[in-house]
């Protein structure tokens, strides 16, 4: 310390203080033994000689705002006293973490940046207790998470490194669901295509019938109404077949004439069909499906395959809307409590699984 600094110190201030600066620019001084409880601050003082005066205040990481710093210092102030019993410390900790989730997260972040591990552990445990046992929707709400995994991503085939027949069953179900999703998508594409087709043929017809008069606007409006009706119908359906039926029931004669052939052809062609808009994606999907189905089906004879398909449908029916999450759970956690030997008796193991699902 320089002579100037020595002159400024008043006798009653024989305690040493450390100067800290938060990212917003504000500077404060903190009792040395309290501040040094934080490894990051300790490091700055000892290795770099910082913090001894206002001009050499230690710049704290950005994640430490004044409010968090105040909380952290309260924590340090209590725990740095050596004489306290474990009971006292536990009691303090329990009261200390009583704050809302947002603050707990900020505090964890701030404590982490100061390398204050005991506080990080304390707040992390508190956060873990808050989220354990909750459903994905509840957790998303607590942490303001976007539900940004697409259905396809939630349906990623699960790696079956242990050749678990239940995982095979689930992957089969996922593959089916992906197919359904893809078919639904294809129908949406067909809709776009058939609108194009419609436009051309209606326009042609109009120009033929009306000789390019202003009637086209009116026709287009009624067409868009039909478009919306069709879209709504599609959203209600969960299977491609029902969607096709609705298409065919369209009261508009023009649509039927132009599109039923298109629809029939595209959907019947099934997996191999490609549409302009989703060419690459479909190919990747197809290859994935083929690989998975190939993997699953290569040792199973048709009769057993049918039984498995029925099991899969049954299984799918029993798991309603929140099935991706429940699926992950059931895959990993079934209802087994004891270790089970999976004998390669196909019927036996499948039946056992189905029974354990009936709760």
């Amino acid at each position, binding site marked *: 310390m320089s002579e100037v600094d020595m002159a400024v110190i008043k006798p009653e201030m024989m305690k040493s203080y450390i100067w800290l600066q938060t990212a917003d620019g504000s500077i404060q001084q903190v009792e040395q033994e309290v501040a040094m409880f934080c490894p990051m601050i300790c490091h700055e003082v000892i290795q770099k000689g910082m913090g001894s005066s206002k001009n050499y205040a230690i710049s704290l990481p950005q994640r430490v705002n004044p409010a968090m710093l105040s909380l952290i210092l309260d924590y340090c102030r209590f725990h740095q006293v050596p004489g306290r019993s474990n009971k006292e410390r536990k009691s303090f900790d329990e009261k200390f973490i009583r704050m809302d989730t*947002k603050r707990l997260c900020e505090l964890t972040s701030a404590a982490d940046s100061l390398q204050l591990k005991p506080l990080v552990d304390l707040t992390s445990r508190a956060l873990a207790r808050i989220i354990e046992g909750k459903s994905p929707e509840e*957790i998303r709400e607590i942490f303001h998470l976007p539900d940004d995994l697409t259905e396809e991503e939630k349906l990623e085939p699960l790696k079956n490194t242990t050749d678990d027949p239940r995982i095979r069953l689930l992957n089969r179900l996922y593959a089916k669901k992906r197919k359904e999703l893809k078919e639904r998508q294809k129908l949406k594409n067909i809709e776009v295509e058939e609108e194009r087709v419609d436009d051309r043929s209606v326009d042609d017809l109009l120009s033929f019938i009306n000789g390019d008069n202003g009637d086209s606007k009116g026709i287009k409006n009624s067409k868009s109404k039909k478009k919306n009706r069709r879209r709504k119908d599609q959203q209600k359906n969960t299977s491609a077949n029902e969607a096709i039926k609705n298409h065919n029931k369209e009261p508009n004669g023009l649509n039927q004439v132009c599109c039923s052939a298109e629809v029939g052809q595209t959907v019947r062609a099934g997996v191999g069909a490609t549409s302009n808009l989703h060419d690459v994606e479909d190919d990747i999907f197809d290859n994935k499906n083929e690989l998975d189905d190939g993997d699953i089906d290569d040792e199973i004879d048709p009769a057993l395959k049918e039984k498995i398909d029925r099991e899969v449908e049954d299984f799918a029916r029993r798991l309603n809307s929140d099935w991706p999450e429940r699926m992950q759970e059931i895959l990993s956690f079934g209802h087994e409590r004891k270790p089970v030997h999976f004998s390669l008796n196909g019927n036996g193991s499948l039946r056992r699984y189905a029974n354990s699902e009936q709760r």
Partner: protein
Amino acid sequence: MEITKVLPDDCISLIISLTSPRDACRMALLSHAFNSIADSNAVWQMFLPLDYIHIISNSSSPPSLLSLPKKDLYFTLCYHPILSHNGDMFQLEKESGKKWYMVGARALSIQWVDTPRHWTWISLPDSRFCRVAKLKNVGRLEIKGKVKLNTLSSNTNYEAYFVFKLVRDRYGFRHTPVELDVSIEGTAAGEVRSVILDPPRNMPQQAKERVDGWLEIEMGEFFNGFENDRTVEFSLREDHDDQPKRGLIVQGIELRPKHKNNR
């Protein structure tokens, strides 16, 4: 405030690893960001037992298991028991990651087991171990086992089960109880339980049937604390009436974490 913008990934990993394996699976479906964190090795390593590398290295399982992603390794260890070189079997309990442990008959001290007119070693397809011990004839029955506490999960209450079968032409177990005892070496002996392995039909059956078709009967329980350089000892004895006994098949002794809601 979105949590992934406030907290760095390794903090989120820590929080997830403090929940449960089941929760971690759920959290992989929350969002893109959570998907990669919740499935990461950083999280699943925390669910594996501390000595998993040691266990796998000293077992008959291929060392390639160790190069699996930790989540896959976790579930492999849950569904496929590992046979260690000294004949014991490890498995993980899915919900908690705690160890299940089984001492096979070969690793138990069974009196007269190597004398062919008393005991014989046979193979049964529904047993986990390739050999189980079948009783031909003894007057005094004594089966003992011991396990080092540091091979088990610490801070856990364990229950010990004697896993056995009885063949059709058995005798000596219908009216004579056997004494079961579990105690940690160096501490006061736990309660000795007296049970009948083969009660007549009108008496309550104390042994329970397992999923693998064997019977199990609880021998006792013990708590594995943190200072675990001790051994826990198990014994099954019938040495009072000297009557001939026959037809008991011993698979081993299984140790499982105790659950309050079970039984």
